[in-house]
């Protein structure tokens, strides 16, 4: 097993998988799946709750007991202003300066709004947040986010919850090539373990996923599958894959082959 550590947002971690806490069949199933994934970062959110409601308490108690890093999101925000307010509220509630910045620009495919995302990122970084911006695989948007001080970028594989995998691996590869110093996480769209392997083989530092695990027929087993897929993809990247060849080339030595057809 790969025991190497890596750093993100000032923390040293072993796991390169960031896991969501939504959509599981039950809170107990969520807890078990997160444990099985061995993820060290879990995403959470903030929503309105009526006086006396205890649901949020119960959920938050389970997450706290997991004793892993919490990454609050700004899901549902449609402007920089809304995202900034949500981030400030999250910092107080969750006691972390980490924020998964999501500013949605289109309700149909939940595509991030690049203009509002960059605007919010710039302000939040000035306010001391460690911004994990959810963005598309657009290289220029990535540049703008880096220019305002983002040390982490989270381009999508494909739209949130779609499970379509990596729509544009070449775009993701270009971002990796242009920003070797940034931490890059493929966020959203991962559907199956092979998508995680592909993302990690591109040299991405990690993956963030939720639906692929929570909506699997057996979320706990799928969490385990993604744990291994993430490790396999990373090891494959570090090991360096062979060059593709146009033609076959035997792997078994040809010298000493019996029954050699010398004259055929």
């Amino acid at each position, binding site marked *: 097993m790969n025991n190497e550590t890596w750093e993100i947002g000032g923390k040293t971690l072993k796991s390169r998988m960031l896991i969501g806490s939504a959509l599981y069949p039950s809170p107990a199933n969520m807890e078990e799946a997160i444990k099985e994934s061995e993820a060290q970062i879990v995403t959470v959110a903030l929503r309105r709750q*009526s006086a006396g409601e205890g649901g949020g308490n119960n959920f938050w108690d389970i997450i706290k007991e997991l004793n892993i890093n919490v990454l609050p999101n700004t899901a549902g925000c449609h402007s920089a202003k809304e995202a900034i307010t949500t981030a400030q509220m999250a910092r107080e509630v969750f006691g972390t300066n980490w924020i998964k910045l999501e500013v949605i620009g289109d309700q149909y495919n939940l595509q991030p709004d690049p203009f509002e995302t960059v605007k919010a990122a710039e302000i939040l970084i000035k306010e001391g947040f460690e911004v994990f911006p959810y963005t598309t695989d657009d290289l220029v948007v990535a540049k703008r986010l880096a220019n305002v001080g983002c040390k982490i970028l989270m381009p999508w594989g494909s739209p949130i919850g779609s499970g379509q995998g990596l729509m544009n691996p070449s775009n993701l590869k270009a971002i990796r090539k242009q920003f070797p110093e940034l931490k890059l996480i493929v966020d959203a769209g991962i559907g199956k373990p092979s998508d995680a392997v592909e993302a990690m083989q591109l040299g991405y530092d990690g993956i963030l996923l939720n639906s692929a695990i929570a909506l699997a027929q057996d979320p706990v087993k799928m969490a385990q599958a993604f744990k291994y897929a993430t490790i396999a993809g990373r090891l494959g990247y570090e090991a360096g894959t062979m060059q593709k060849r146009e033609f076959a080339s035997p792997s078994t030595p040809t010298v000493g082959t019996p029954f050699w057809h010398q004259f055929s």
Partner: protein
Amino acid sequence: MIKVSVNGEIKELPKGLNVSQLIEALNYKTKGFAVAINTTFVSIKSYEETIIKNGDTIDILAPVQGG
């Protein structure tokens, strides 16, 4: 009395309440929440000095599952 919106519900409250008194008046029991008034965050340290005004839109948010 003043009328305010709390998490989307219209409520009638006594005039002059600060945020701490509002939380108490609402009997808000959930631990771990944060408050915004008119989409601006109000930190815990500002609760005492922030007075609720007629027509304010108050959001009280608590942890939930997220992706």
